């Protein structure tokens, strides 16, 4: 019984992950939460949505490149269309005009590309500040950050990590925390073991992302 559960969890690093999870909770409470509260007090919801759209738009080259790497030509076209519409008509990406015109947003990254190429996800890893990930997705994130992200090339072209890239990382981080803080708090309140519930939710959402939203395999309920 215990063995099956152990294998299903695929979390051989669990003791370390839980320790990192605790560290992260501490950082979150002491540092991140006050910043987000301040951010929300200063910038109204509309504005924060605009910033979220803007940052999402900046990220679209990464999505585009990974669409191509996965052979998803139609989706690559959608990404391009969104980039053009939102940057132009949407005022540098602040307004998600494309969504209103029916071109849905989607997200691709190198971790998903590796998955599509057949790489298994590897053990679950909880990284302070970055949150839940897997061995494969962590590597994918690194590759996106240094290779597929055009901002990274710009930085290297002009010399060491410059303020543009720091500003981008910083604001992307705050935006991510702003968007995910409330759902995560809610998950914490409705679960017994928040660490396990988060691990489970992460895996399920990730699997759906990799399938590009197609219906997944359903477990049989009746035993």
């Amino acid at each position, binding site marked *: 019984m215990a063995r099956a559960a152990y294998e299903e969890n695929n979390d051989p690093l669990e003791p370390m992950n839980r320790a990192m999870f605790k560290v992260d909770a501490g950082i979150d409470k002491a540092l991140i939460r006050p910043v987000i509260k301040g951010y929300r007090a200063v910038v109204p919801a509309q504005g924060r949505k605009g910033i979220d759209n803007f940052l999402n738009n900046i990220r679209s080259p990464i999505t585009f490149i990974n669409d191509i790497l996965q052979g998803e030509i139609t989706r690559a076209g959608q990404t391009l269309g969104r980039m053009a519409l939102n940057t132009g008509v949407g005022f540098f990406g602040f307004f998600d005009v494309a969504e209103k015109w029916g071109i849905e947003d989607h997200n691709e*990254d190198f971790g998903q590309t590796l998955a599509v190429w057949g790489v298994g996800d590897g053990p679950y890893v909880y990284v302070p500040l*970055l*949150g839940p990930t897997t061995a494969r997705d962590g590597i994918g994130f690194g590759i996106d950050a240094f290779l597929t992200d055009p901002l990274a090339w710009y930085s290297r072209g002009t010399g060491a990590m410059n303020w543009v890239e720091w500003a981008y990382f910083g604001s992307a981080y705050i935006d991510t925390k702003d*968007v995910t803080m409330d759902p995560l708090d809610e998950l914490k309140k409705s*679960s017994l073991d928040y660490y396990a519930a988060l691990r489970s939710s992460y895996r*399920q*959402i990730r699997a759906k992302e990799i399938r590009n939203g197609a219906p997944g395999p*359903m477990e049989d*309920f*009746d035993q």
Partner: protein
Amino acid sequence: MPTLSRRAFASGVSAIALLSVAAPLSAVMAQAQPDAAAFVGDFTRKGITDILSAPTATTEKQQRFRDMFKTYFDLPGIGRFVLTRYWAAATPEEQAKFTKLFEDVIVYTWSRRFSEYNGQSLMIQGQQADGKDGTLVKSTIVGNNSSHFGVDWRLRKRPEGFKVLDIVIEGVSMAITYRQDYSTVISQTGSFAGLLAQMEKQVADLKAQQGA
């Protein structure tokens, strides 16, 4: 979390916690609705009239929600799925205690969010077969700021009619998440009784917060 689209994560996680926003059916289907879709439409509509927008006290709403949940959801089936191998290993008293506690957990977790209902609407998108005698009904919940997320209802046809077995929100299954949460608690506390104790505490805390 950069390795997962923050939007996918936000909608997935917030959706699983937002299960109480069942809403009236604003159907966009021209043809006659088959059984399963109509079933979902009916009870979500009932949920909004009798619970979410009803002008009654919280305790009354909780009772109505409890009754609806026991009527429309296959609580014993869900409980067995959530516990998997641990169900068969538990004594009948433990099984009964678990089922009652699980029911309380669902009622008090979701009733906390009743007041957040804000006129969202539910649109049935369609349905497909799900196993031997199951149906998957796909729907979308549309919020006021044009936010939307997908909710799939897994139904089984039992002798007494359809029963909901699971809700999958933006890819996150309620039953699977509970299962992985609870199996971790059992292995961490070392026993089934450990899980029951934590569930009892959670229910007590939730009730206290809501003044129930």
